[in-house]
């Protein structure tokens, strides 16, 4: 892909997108992010005027699920078109070029848009043994990230792997996988976690970055507009939770009646994402609606947070061997202490003597 400097509005017309549908897109984005109504207009005006933003997309230890989510939505939607408004200068899966030519495209983009391009990362970065566990064109992911991040304007970590380490980081983490934010400390980083993230969340955040800059982020670096509420708070099954009506298994009466899945392991109460409101496949459904509890995929270390089918209120700790040893040792120490105490108590009993009336007279004498 070569560098283009066309304005977005030109591109839109070239693709046969009417201004009406473009405005609809902007309005949808603005409302999805709970921006004020005027923001849709601002967004549209800005998007029309901006030059195509150069974007470099790096894929590291990942499964391509995030790219799939973004590009293979139910039908070709306006979300996918956003990629026509940016200049995706480097992307493994999507680019036509290969080998040296592909790497050349990346270097060209980095050079031409130095300090201005946006870096999108999906996948975690292996750091153990100097990062040899994943290389592209002979370069480790670790080195490539550092190199590309150096001149980026901002970094967007797409998917839980890039944002928090994700599955590759799950115990015992054989490759020493880390998230982008664990490695890069001097750039603004937006996390869009999820396994994968919701397509409209990705396009919405990108639109926001292009027009209004970096959105408001929570303590985990996630845009508050999409990750501000917990699944639980916006879940349509919440009334059942409030009434104490729970499915006890996936095939009981409660499950058939659509009661709350808390007791079969739903992580909705501790998971922040927009699944319950935006839903998936063009707003068709989301996991809880199809009868399975939330697995908490947009939270850090969700893979190691206990079983997916264990209720949140149950303990994740497994006592294991040492607890048994400690218990045994404690019992022995306790029994020994009790014996010793009994002995000294008996000794004291025999040492003390009766108080007699003569003792009462002592002071008088």
């Amino acid at each position, binding site marked *: 892909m070569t560098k283009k400097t066309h304005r977005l509005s030109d591109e839109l017309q070239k693709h046969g997108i009417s201004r009406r549908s473009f405005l609809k897109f902007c309005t949808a984005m603005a409302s999805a992010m709970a921006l004020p109504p005027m923001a849709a207009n601002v967004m549209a005006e800005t998007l029309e005027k901006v030059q195509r933003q150069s974007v470099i997309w790096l894929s590291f230890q990942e499964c391509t699920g995030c790219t799939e989510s973004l590009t293979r939505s139910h039908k070709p939607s306006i979300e996918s078109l956003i990629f026509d408004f940016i200049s995706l200068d480097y992307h493994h899966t999507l680019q036509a070029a290969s080998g040296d030519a592909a790497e050349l495209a990346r270097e060209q983009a980095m050079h031409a848009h130095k300090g201005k391009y946006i870096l999108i990362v999906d996948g975690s970065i292996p750091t153990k043994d100097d990062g040899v566990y994943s290389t592209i064109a002979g370069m480790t992911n670790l080195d490539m990230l550092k190199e590309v991040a150096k001149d980026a304007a901002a970094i967007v970590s797409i998917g839980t792997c890039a944002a928090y380490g994700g599955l590759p980081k799950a115990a015992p983490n054989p490759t020493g996988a880390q998230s982008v934010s664990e490695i890069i400390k001097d750039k603004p980083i937006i996390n869009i976690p999820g396994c994968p993230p919701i397509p409209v969340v990705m396009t919405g955040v990108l639109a926001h970055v292009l027009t209004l800059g970096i959105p408001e982020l929570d303590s985990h670096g996630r845009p508050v507009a999409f990750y501000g509420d917990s699944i639980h708070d916006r879940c349509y099954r919440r009334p059942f939770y409030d009434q104490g009506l729970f499915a006890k298994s996936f095939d009981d009466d409660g499950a058939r009646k659509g009661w709350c899945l808390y007791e079969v392991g739903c992580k909705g109460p501790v998971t922040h994402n927009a699944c319950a409101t935006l839903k998936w496949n063009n707003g068709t459904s989301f996991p809880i609606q199809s009868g399975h509890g939330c697995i908490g995929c947009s939270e850090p270390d969700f893979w190691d947070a206990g079983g997916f089918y264990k209720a949140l209120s149950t303990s994740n700790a497994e006592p294991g061997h040492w607890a048994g040893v400690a218990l045994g040792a404690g019992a022995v120490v306790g029994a020994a*202490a009790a014996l010793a105490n009994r002995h000294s*108590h008996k000794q*004291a009993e025999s*040492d*003390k*003597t009766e108080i007699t*009336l003569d003792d*009462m007279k002592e002071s008088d004498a």
Partner: protein
Amino acid sequence: MTTSLEQGINTLKAAIDAPTASYFSSCVHCGICAYACIFYTETGEAKYTPMNRLEPMKRLWEQEYTVLGRLKKLIGLSKAITQADMEAAVELNFESCTTCGRCSMICPVGNDIVYMIKKMRGALTAAGLAPPELKGAAVRAIEKGSVMGFPMETLAAQVRAAEKETGIKINIDEPNVDYMLLLSSAEVVQFDEIIGSLAKIFKQAGVTWTFSSKAHEAANPGMHMGAKDIEAQQIEQMVAAAEELKVKNVISPECGHAYMAIRWDGPNVIGRPYPFKVFHIIEVLDQLREQGKLKTNACCTEEPITFHDPCQAARRGGVNQPQRNLLNMMSSNFVEMKQHSACNWCCGGGGGVGSLEKTEELRKRIFHRKKRQIDELGVNTVVTMCATCRNTLEEGLENNSMDVNVIGLTEAVANHLLKENES
């Protein structure tokens, strides 16, 4: 035995039992016991926090009965209990604690603090540090049968006087009667009108009763000193007297701690059950009232009266309702203090504190609580059912120049019945 620091420590060590160990380990240091204690609330001095009074006992428990404490002792990190520690404990356990039990009742983890204070007192007694007033009282109680030293002859004289005044025969050593009556020292000489009063009430009710020449007083200084041996010796005297006369019931007088000793502590310290029942005199009067044996035909007085609950009989002993039944029978204007019954505030004289010369100034300070309670109600009469409370109240009211009468409940009931008969 000769009392000594070593004996005190041995006694304390032997006194630390399973409940004590669990109390010390479950104390969460919340300090609520301080706010339950009249000595803390009226002085604001932190040393009066009930759990703090037990510091030597707690240290000994740690050193002798906990793994960490033993280690600390081994490497010299904890100090042994000294004579000075024990002497300091005398002030906190004998002179500024009436064993009223409010702390035990209020403790959120259920620690019976008074249970431990009594053990602490026992250890101090074994160390020879018990206050001389209590020691003297114990000697008099066992040798003469009276804490103030009034022998049976004194009571016999009072009985004759009461017989003369009322014209009713009063038994001494009469076997097989319903009740054997025990008195407190104060009732033998100071509040002696009670003898005639009871003669009238019992005659009217048709019950039989007697005094015993072998045991005529129920006060028990041994209990105050935590000296179980002495306490038991005195209880044995009373039990022997009651057994000899084959009475069905023994009446504990208008005295808080006597009731505690003979009704609740007694069988435990002597190690066997009684062949008779024990009642507080007010329980007996209320039973007679219930059976319709307290005959009265005039209406009750309208003068406002209030009641001061003796800690040992009410909170600790469980006698809370009978006195209220009797007061409501006599007065249409019986008003309660804000905190009463099980929650009452101590008068400041119980647990032997009232008999200690040293405590006079402190007693004056802590009486302010009772003063405020009485002032709030604006009554002119306070009724109580304990001779020690009565003395303490009279002393406190006098010190504060308050024009309030204090009377014993038995006397009040007798006056009430008498009034009816005259009218």
